[in-house]
């Protein structure tokens, strides 16, 4: 069995937030006790609603935030012992908004070659050649390397972001909502590009998205996050077909497939998404859970493993 190109062990990130003047700080548990592993060439879909900790998880993997507890291993090495450059050599990001993630004052060529220059890989001649090579690969005409981001369409910009992430051939690419800012007709082009690049370069993806249709399309395994914890994880096909955690079931039921014969789903979550500073006791999902019993209010369910699937619920099972 694959030891995993990325291994996350009991990772936690706690932010100190102000509670108001003279009141001292409060702890915001953005990520708590998260563990998962991603095998080489896999696509892990990290899903959940806003505020569930998926972007914090991304920052921890990219080394942009320091872990409060636990550890993350990239190709078997602890990120705690790696510098920024060593992490960057292995993991590269693609962000949501290509209008915000590309420096408007730099030419496309300079943007794409930045990782090579920052990591001191190769010389000027090689940079230009690599830029042209990767632009061809992601479907950008190499002549555009002298242009600036404002001269490109949204889809082209996201191709630039993909090219920049792939130019030094990282093992892992972390895609944080890679198509959320794009139009539907352009989204398909970028999703196809990600599929192509995975085949061409054997890269492993971590795909963070709130769009479950996109995740189902690309992911090989899925982890569902709720209030900083993973409530369910396992192979994508199984999670989508037989979700066991009531939260996963609610999420999947809320997806509006374009089927005019179906009406709007009855979503049973009436309570609001809780404030992560005042975490509910016991299972953090219990205030919104249709199955909640006494034990859920007092005792946090441990994740139970069964044939590659993990569910953290006192009463898991089909809806």
């Amino acid at each position, binding site marked *: 069995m694959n030891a995993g190109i990325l291994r996350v062990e009991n990772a936690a990130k706690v932010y100190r937030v102000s509670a108001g003047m003279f009141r001292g700080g409060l702890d915001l548990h953005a990520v708590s006790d998260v563990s998962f592993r991603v095998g080489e060439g896999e696509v892990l879909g990290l899903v959940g*609603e*806003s505020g569930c900790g998926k972007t914090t998880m991304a920052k921890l993997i990219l080394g942009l935030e320091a872990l409060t507890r636990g550890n993350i291993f990239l190709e078997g090495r602890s990120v705690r012992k790696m510098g920024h450059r060593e992490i960057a050599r292995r993991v590269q990001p693609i962000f949501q908004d290509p209008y915000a993630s590309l420096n408007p004052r730099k030419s496309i060529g300079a943007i794409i070659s930045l990782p090579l220059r920052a990591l001191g890989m190769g010389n000027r001649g090689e940079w230009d050649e690599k830029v042209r090579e990767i632009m061809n690969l992601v479907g950008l005409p190499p002549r555009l390397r002298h242009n600036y981001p404002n001269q490109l*369409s949204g*889809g*082209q910009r996201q191709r630039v972001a993909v090219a920049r992430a792939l130019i030094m051939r990282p093992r892992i690419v972390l895609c944080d909502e890679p198509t959320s800012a794009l*139009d*539907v*007709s*352009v*989204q*398909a*082009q970028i*999703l*196809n590009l990600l*599929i*192509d690049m995975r085949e061409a370069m054997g890269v492993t993806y971590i795909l963070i998205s*709130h769009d*479950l*249709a*996109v995740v*189902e*399309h*690309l*992911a090989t395994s899925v982890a569902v996050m709720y209030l900083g914890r993973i409530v369910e994880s396992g192979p*994508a*096909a199984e999670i*989508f077909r037989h979700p066991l955690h009531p939260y996963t079931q*609610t*999420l999947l*039921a*809320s*997806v*509006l*497939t*374009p*089927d*005019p*014969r*179906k*009406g*709007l*789903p*009855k*979503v049973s*979550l*009436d309570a*609001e*998404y809780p404030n992560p500073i005042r975490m509910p006791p016991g299972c953090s999902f219990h205030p919104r859970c249709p199955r909640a019993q006494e034990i859920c209010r007092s005792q946090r369910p441990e994740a139970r493993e069964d044939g590659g699937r993990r569910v953290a619920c006192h009463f898991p099972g089909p809806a």
Partner: protein
Amino acid sequence: MTALLEVEGLRVDLSLPAGVLHAVQDVSFHVEKGETFSLVGESGCGKTMTALAVMGLLPRSATRSAERILFEGEDITHAHERRMTAIRGARMTMIFQEPMTSLDPCYTIGDQLEEVLLEHRRVSRREARERAVFLLEKVGITAAASRLKQYPHQLSGGLRQRVMIAMSLMCGPSLIIADEPTTALDVTIQAQILSLLVSVQKEYETGMILITHDLGVVARTADRLAVMYCGQVVETGTVAEVFTRPLHPYTRGLMRCIPIPGKTRPGQKLDTIPGIVPTPIGDLRGCLFRNRCPHARPACAGEGIEEVRLTPGRSYRCILQPEENPEKAAA
């Protein structure tokens, strides 16, 4: 019987440094009482401009012309600004995508809700407050009376959008225009807000124009729709008609390029619409989709790409006859 809203030949032009942008070109549609009519399309297709033009809320740089805009039987094509102010917020209301930018952060929820009624009706503040509490409860907000004293920043995104819906209902409007009402919300909240909109709309027999880019939202909530591309309506019909038998190549392309759980095979390449959406600036001729269309032929660049009306509510703008379509319907 006349429709609640009838729009004929609506045009909106925007003067930009690069030339005149034809944001809305000859758009016609109608909305019946109690019906949800959806304007669907990608960003820049003119769906929001169409709604703003109907409301009389266009930016100063825009010029509007129309053969006819009839609202509740009244011709508002050339209505004076004072008349539009009386209609807006009372008979015709709008819900925007991001509730935080449409609510004033300096005033309480109660002040903002009550103001709508005090502005348009001769009522006392107490009556206005009672109406506000009644509607907040209606949109599923608990402890409504105490919410009135809260400020927008104290509410979550889902609650703010509920407040916006309550606000749009204060005067009992006959038409609600909802512009991407759930795009800024999480999926679980999206379903709740849409259900809420549909239920209050059915209860009060309000007509609704639902503007969205999300085909899932349209399929599940709308009765009829118009697909817009580059400022033009390229196809209209009932939701069942358009989704089961799309007639315009753009509509078909849109429906095929999204991954659909249970339908598209995971990991398989998706169909794409090649190229990008052009900006409708300058002299426009022929079909605006022809550069991206798999069936484009020389005639598509010529004049006379007119809307073909099959029935009063079913039309498409393409010179291909439906029988000529290489594919009968999207899978």
